[in-house]
């Protein structure tokens, strides 16, 4: 019975911990380590990274043995779209202003949902933009450019 490792929950978790822990250790070596009684900036991160690495190995092996699967499906599309929505907001705010940034962010985020009803999303965009401008720009007098960047 060939185990499907890429769907194995603990295998993946363990792998993630191993990678993160290993990275932490590798990067920490650039900082002075010092000794146990006189720790340098690199000591703590290196120890932590090492512990995480070891936990990762344990979880990975345990996963291989138990074979528990990841429940449900991976939501690649919603994940990508939500992340994109966030990134676009940050990118656009300074450059083309708050209003376009909000509208774009809302549209992209809404696209991550199961259904996308254009009229509803448009309405949502208008309402949210109006609300945000009212609260943040007029109410709180935050100096964000509404249209056009700095």
């Amino acid at each position, binding site marked *: 019975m060939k185990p499907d490792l890429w769907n194995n929950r603990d295998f993946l978790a363990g792998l993630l911990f191993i990678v993160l822990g290993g990275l932490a250790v590798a990067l920490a070596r650039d900082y002075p380590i010092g000794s146990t009684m006189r720790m340098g900036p*690199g000591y703590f991160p290196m120890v932590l990274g090492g512990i995480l690495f070891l936990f990762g190995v344990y979880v990975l092996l345990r996963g291989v043995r138990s074979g528990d699967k*990841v429940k449900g499906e991976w939501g690649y599309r919603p*994940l990508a779209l939500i992340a994109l929505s966030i990134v676009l907001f*940050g990118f656009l705010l300074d450059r083309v202003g708050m209003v376009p940034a*909000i509208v774009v962010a809302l549209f992209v985020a809404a696209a991550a*949902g199961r259904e996308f009803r254009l009229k509803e999303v448009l309405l949502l965009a208008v309402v949210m933009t109006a609300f945000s401008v009212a609260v943040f720009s007029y109410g709180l007098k935050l100096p964000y450019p509404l249209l056009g960047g700095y």
Partner: protein
Amino acid sequence: MDILNNLVFGFGVAFSLENLAYCFAGVALGTLIGVLPGVGPLVTIAMLFPITFHLPAVPAIIMLAGIFYGAQYGGSTTSILVNLPGETASAVTCIDGYQMARRGRAGPALATAALASFFAGCVGTLLIALAGPTLGEWALRFGAAEYTSLMLMALVASAVMTQGDAVKGLAMVVLGLLIGVVGVDVNSGMARYSFGIPELIDGIGFTVVAVGLFAVAEIVVNLESREAREVYTGRVTGLMPTARDLKDAAWPTVRGTAVGACFGVLPGTGPALSSFATYMLEKKLAKDPSRFGQGAIEGVAAPEAANNAAAQTAFIPMLTLGIPASATMAVMLAALTLQGIATGPQVMFDKPDLFWGLIASMWIGNFLLVILNLPLVGVWVRLLTVPYRWLFPSIILFSSIGNYSVSNNPFDVYLCAVIGVLGYVLVKLECEPAPLLLGYVLGPLLEENLRRALLIARGDPTVFFTRPISLAFMIATVLILVVMVVPAARGKRHGA
């Protein structure tokens, strides 16, 4: 007794009709802004405090106090409703509060949070008045060694926190510790894990981690499957807590208040740690620990009481030493300075009406908060019936605005997206986010104090055992370890 008189005097100052109106306005404003996901108390107060510039001193402070409470409660509201902590302390409320909301019990959760906070606030205010200076002096005995052993104890106890898998839970704590390491190392001044990016020199902010880990991950999980999934059950079983709820929540509230009051006096620890600590305590004390994480009302009452008690007693270092208790306090004091009122220790002694008026206003703000929000519970619950496809883009939007507004820097927004992806992966692989947050809070404190203690002791490790308070914590740590390991050795750990 002098202080009690002062407190009464403060109430006199604060209780005018005009001032009450300002307080109410502050509470309302603070709640409305604080409720926006990702916009936590610190950001809220930072955004709102310029409004108070145009007001005379006393109403300004009172309004700020109202804003402070409103914002804190707003943070708890988002924790319960949409699994998004407004500040570290509310992260713990997410664990059970959000589960209650999903099961149609958002109303009781919100109401309990308000009531527990109010109880804690009353106790806290009294404590300041009666025992302030004593507690303040006591806090001075806490040096680096004491903090270290306290953090160590908390770290070990955190294994109790994990809902399911103990090993993965601990791994999350370690991962949290590592995320907390990013930034300038206090003891050496070196920037760690900053990759030459200036924004990382100050570390990864709480808002970024919270939004990414909790909100983004939760939203994507809700969207991932192709068939519609009911996020919040349509059946809402009542807006107010039942008698049973109140009974269940009573003792945890009291215990939470006690824990919070103790931690609050220690500068640097405060609300976050106390809410985690009391959650762990309640879980250990409960007859059926497996209920925690599924919507146990104790898991809402205790942390809410704790973080409010801690926020109150955090005034004590301010009283005795003139040092702002937290970043939020610092902003408030800044507002005072700009009013033309000298800040620092002087404020306590030269202008007692201002200081005690502030303490009284905090209580009034707390009270008005309950009055304002209990009726609003119905509105919040109604909000959850909005179709999810409208709700989630709004959450993402406001979270992004909140993240941006922390330093007016798009980098924080980008970082949040990255953490969101990581958060989703972790949640999918059944690694809980709450322990990570605990590690993130604990890590810097532990390391900073450990190295400082050794530095002061010139490398002599016995310092942790020769100082009495530190020794007490170390013994407690060993005891906790024993208590945890023995049942595990005897048999499988039951579910929780």
